[in-house]
């Protein structure tokens, strides 16, 4: 039996459709809520399916006028890069198309100042970098052919410099930044938008592993600002915006000085 694409697609009332990878908590979950509120149909992915189901339930309950499901749930571990091409294709079929993909998943294990733990490092590279490449490559191939679409990667201010605190976390985010920049340059001529989001401190479980925090914003605030950046088709955006100034300064501190700094 051939499964049906979502029924009821009306030519005059086109839907916006998004995939959010890493949607079970934090920024991802908040972004799913925000996108659904803005009329998107969202495919929400994460390893923890139960959290996704409760998220979907609460979002779908909040869209009473729509009989359609707003959030579709897919269990997925981003380490399983083998399954991504087929899963991507199936999800896009289920959605009936694709306008936006957001890669949110990221891990930041606690790393001591003098710790060199390859298992933790490899995990960060796999989840923060390779997972993103596996998913966003698929989106790039598709959007290149369909001449349109929006790719968003949630990176971090941490990718702006290599710092003493978390070398491989910085590396992973720097890699993601460079990858997204390259995608942007490749795809701009095809009408595809690529947005790099660089949040500062956001009140999520990952934050517990950060040494010192300030200017902390809630995931909901972050999601609202990310949505705005998506709507405005921005390139690189710091969240909140004042981190842009910090980033500018940090990036220009000479290495000879930066190496003696504490953070």
């Amino acid at each position, binding site marked *: 039996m*051939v*499964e*049906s*694409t979502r*029924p*009821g*697609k009306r030519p*005059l009332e086109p839907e916006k459709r998004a995939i959010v990878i890493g949607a079970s908590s934090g920024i991802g979950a908040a972004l799913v809520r925000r996108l659904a509120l803005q009329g998107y149909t969202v495919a929400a992915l994460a390893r923890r399916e139960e959290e996704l189901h409760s998220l979907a339930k609460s979002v779908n309950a909040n869209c009473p006028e729509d009989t359609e499901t707003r959030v579709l749930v897919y269990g997925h571990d981003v380490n399983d890069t083998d399954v991504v091409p087929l899963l991507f294709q199936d999800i896009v079929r289920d*959605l009936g198309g694709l306008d936006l993909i957001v890669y949110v998943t990221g891990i930041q294990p606690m790393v001591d100042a003098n710790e060199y733990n390859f298992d933790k490092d490899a995990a960060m590279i796999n989840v923060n970098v390779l997972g993103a490449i596996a998913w966003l490559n698929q989106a790039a191939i598709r959007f290149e052919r369909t001449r349109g679409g929006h790719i968003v990667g949630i990176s971090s201010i941490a990718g702006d410099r290599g710092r003493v605190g978390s070398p491989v976390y910085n590396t992973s985010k720097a890699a993601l930044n460079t990858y997204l920049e390259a995608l942007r340059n490749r795809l701009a001529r095809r009408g595809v938008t690529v947005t790099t989001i660089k949040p500062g401190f956001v009140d999520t479980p990952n934050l517990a592993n950060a040494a010192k925090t300030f200017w902390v914003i809630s995931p909901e605030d972050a999601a609202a600002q990310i949505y705005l950046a998506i709507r405005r088709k921005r390139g690189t955006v710091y969240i909140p915006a004042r981190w842009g100034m910090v980033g500018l300064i940090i990036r220009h501190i000479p290495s000879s000085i930066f190496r003696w700094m504490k953070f």
Partner: protein
Amino acid sequence: MIEEQTSKDISQNRHASSSGQLSLEHLEVVSAWGGASRSASYVFRPTTEDQLHDLMLLAAKSGRSIGLRGGGNSYGDAALNSENILLDMRRMNRILEWNPVSGVIKLEPGVTISQLWQYVLEDGWWPPVVTGTSMTTIGGCAAMNVHGKNAYQAGPIGDHILEFELMLPSGESILCSREENSDLFFAAIGGFGMLGIFTSVTMQLKRVYSGLLDVQTETQPDLASMFDYFEAYVDYSDYIVGWIDSFSKGSALGRGDVHRANYLGSGADLAPSQTMRLENQHLTPNMFNVMPRSIIWIFMRPFMNNLGTSLINMAKYQAGRLGGSKQLRQPHAAFHFLLDYVPDWKNSYGPGGLIQYQPFIPKETARDAFADILRLCQRRGMPNYLTVFKRHRPDDFLMTHGLDGYSLAMDFRITDERRRRVAALARELDEIVLAAGGRFYFAKDSTLRPEVAQAYLGQETIDQFKAMKKRNDPDNLLQTDLWRRVFT
């Protein structure tokens, strides 16, 4: 190291494709003809029945449905199958058998009307039913059961199909005619590609004795005169079509032009072999001998708004009125394929494109209903830019749009700002049409909702159609966006 990784990548891809992934090389953005909606599909272009069968196996393996697409001239989503497989049938376009004595022709589904008339005219034949564009395919015409400007007399194209072969998703091929598998004959014609794939269509063509038609144009000052004129002339005309100025108000509501045409009888054309020659049928590539017709739409674009089109409609009516009644002889192709006259004219509607809303209403209620419809569109600030008026008759096909009455084809420009307003207006118009006992036509449709389809077709008809679909296509392999929108 690098080599190792590359070979790993390749094995991953192989793994993926064996589990039902479709090659992205086939992914294409496909647009509804009107351009108001578009979506991506995995497009394949089969040339043989074997390839068709292979594609059905591929669809089953990848868990995706198959939509059928001919010339892609359906205004809405009848030939779209978002994110699934779409078969562009235009390469199966051989003329299989032609008998110039009897006028019986057997065609592959991808043969276009343009290909067909050019093949037979010099032998003294013409397709009995043609669409307003000649880019439509026979398979598409049969699936939509299209009609022409002679619908009140010739009926839909299905009435001229003698038999067809239908390939089912199982690969089995069934011959259908009025005698053999007649239930499938009357359901697959007009069944918008849901019951099987036409692999050949045999039809009876119409004898003509000239390459020209006697054409008469006249203006009508209001809607009542328009109806009266049609009633008076249907018995004496081979073709009649009306164009209505949808901006006209008050006592002039529904004014417009009428074009009617008659075949020339045997002997009326002194040199039929000349007029039937293809070079005497073809449209000239330039308008006024200078402007290439392919770029006219660019100059139309600034006028495609309420003000511009109201001026055009008024000017057209007044020019017709002042010019008075005109009689002329026109080649078949020039009279019929008005939509091909300005290539890409739909582009003048801008990036949002257009939709068409075409209700069919019984003659008893049509006069009031059409007046209500025209007035409602004006009240909502969305008069149609092009409105065409035709007469129809009933037929025996299961999912038919035909009835003893009239149709009003209205083109609405679509922009982001107008989208929801047009959708809301269509809902209001649906009420008028249903109350008047009207019907709708899948080839034109973009707005039909399941409850409206149920109301005009009747639950029994829909059940019958679905039961037949279940029998022919148990895995529900054949689908389109239209099918999912209206019937699931």
